């Protein structure tokens, strides 16, 4: 039977190239693929474009990846937070590029990337700085702005349980960006707390069907839960 399990985080991240666009799931700690992010720091790929909701908190996870100088550009909705000092310093020193995207447009651009949609007209952002220079159109009397799809070379996904085929389920609000990001990358890598036997996930409740996922690595229960 097909088996997408890999032995460890290093094997899961094998082959990620310099210059890659990496979609990183999670919202706060919930659903953040922390083992994979930490692994990417050790793996060493640089000149990366990171697509995520935030641009790192504190000194760990994404912030550590930024601090190590591996990230050229961040595409996110909310970089500035009370503990985003690593990003803030790099940004204000002109050492990192930033593309700010409204959170719903970010999710939909990634969804479009995964769904083969070439772009979409959205009312979000119309008449604001974030729509400047973009094509607009009036449809049924309402103004919309054209947004482009986002695709990744790699997606790092934080799921709850998976099977060896690559089916995934999430836990509570840790779903967030993960299911859409899983659809939108050439190489989708999922960390899961637990791998269960094939048939062990309720097919009515599988959120990410197996075909989106290329590698599954079991990292064990997260210590903060």
């Amino acid at each position, binding site marked *: 039977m097909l088996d997408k399990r890999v032995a460890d985080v290093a094997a899961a991240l094998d082959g990620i190239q310099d210059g890659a666009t990496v979609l990183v799931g999670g919202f706060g700690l919930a659903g953040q693929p922390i083992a994979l992010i930490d692994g990417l720091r050790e793996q060493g790929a640089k000149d990366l474009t990171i697509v995520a909701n935030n641009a790192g908190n504190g000194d760990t996870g994404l912030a550590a990846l930024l601090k190590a100088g591996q990230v050229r550009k961040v595409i996110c909705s909310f970089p500035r937070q009370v503990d985003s000092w690593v990003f803030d310093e790099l940004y204000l020193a002109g050492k990192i590029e930033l593309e700010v995207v409204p959170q719903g447009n970010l999710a939909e651009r990634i969804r479009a990337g995964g769904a083969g949609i070439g772009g979409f007209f959205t009312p979000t952002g119309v008449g604001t700085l974030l729509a400047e220079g973009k094509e607009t159109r009036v449809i049924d009397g309402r103004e919309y702005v054209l947004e482009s799809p986002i695709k990744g070379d790699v997606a790092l996904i934080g799921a709850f349980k998976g099977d060896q085929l690559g089916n995934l389920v999430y836990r509570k609000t840790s779903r967030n960006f993960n299911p859409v990001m899983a659809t939108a990358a050439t190489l989708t890598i999922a960390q899961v707390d637990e791998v269960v036997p094939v048939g062990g996930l309720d097919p009515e409740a599988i959120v990410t069907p197996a075909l989106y996922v290329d590698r599954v690595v079991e990292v064990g229960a997260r210590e903060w*839960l």
Partner: protein
Amino acid sequence: MALTRDELAARIAADIPYGAYVNLGIGAPTLVADHLEPERDVTLHTENGLLGMGRAAKGDEIDPDLINAGKIPVIAEPGHAFFHHADSFAMMRGGHLDVCVLGAFQVSVTGDLANWHTGEPGAIPAVGGAMDLAIGAKQVWVMTDLLTKDGTSKLVAACSYPLTGKGCVSRVYTDRAVIEVGPNGARVLDLFGTTLEELNELTGLELTQ
């Protein structure tokens, strides 16, 4: 007397229709949740993927996988549902939420909202879900003090800060007054310990009732 923050939250809660689906923005609007009476059957949406959000979690209830859009641990009400970010913002953008309550730097009499960016040099822009929320409910209400700390009116003829959304706000709840705003201009719906003349003096506008 002008209303306290809590009294204002209670007033907004009382105006939310029975059975409404509601998103409360980060900051002061979250106070509205404390004043929603259970028999009004209001369901709270949080954009990080939960419909049926409850109050902040305490003690053993705290679960880092169950948080709100402000990343605060919450509980979930019976009958809640989880969904991913694209679905969550589709609920919003698609007009399926009845009311959204947001904070503001400025609101114009025509309903323009500025609440994400001061536009000052060196300010790091961070929008989050603000622009999506601003255009994403059937009714978008603003909850704010009428005046900034230095006494400037947040209700203005035209916003000077970068916009979050154009013509998106329908009602502004402040500690001094409730004001309807929109394409036909502003109209004062209610005054709290303030006369219309005083309100016009504070805002520099020519509001009517």
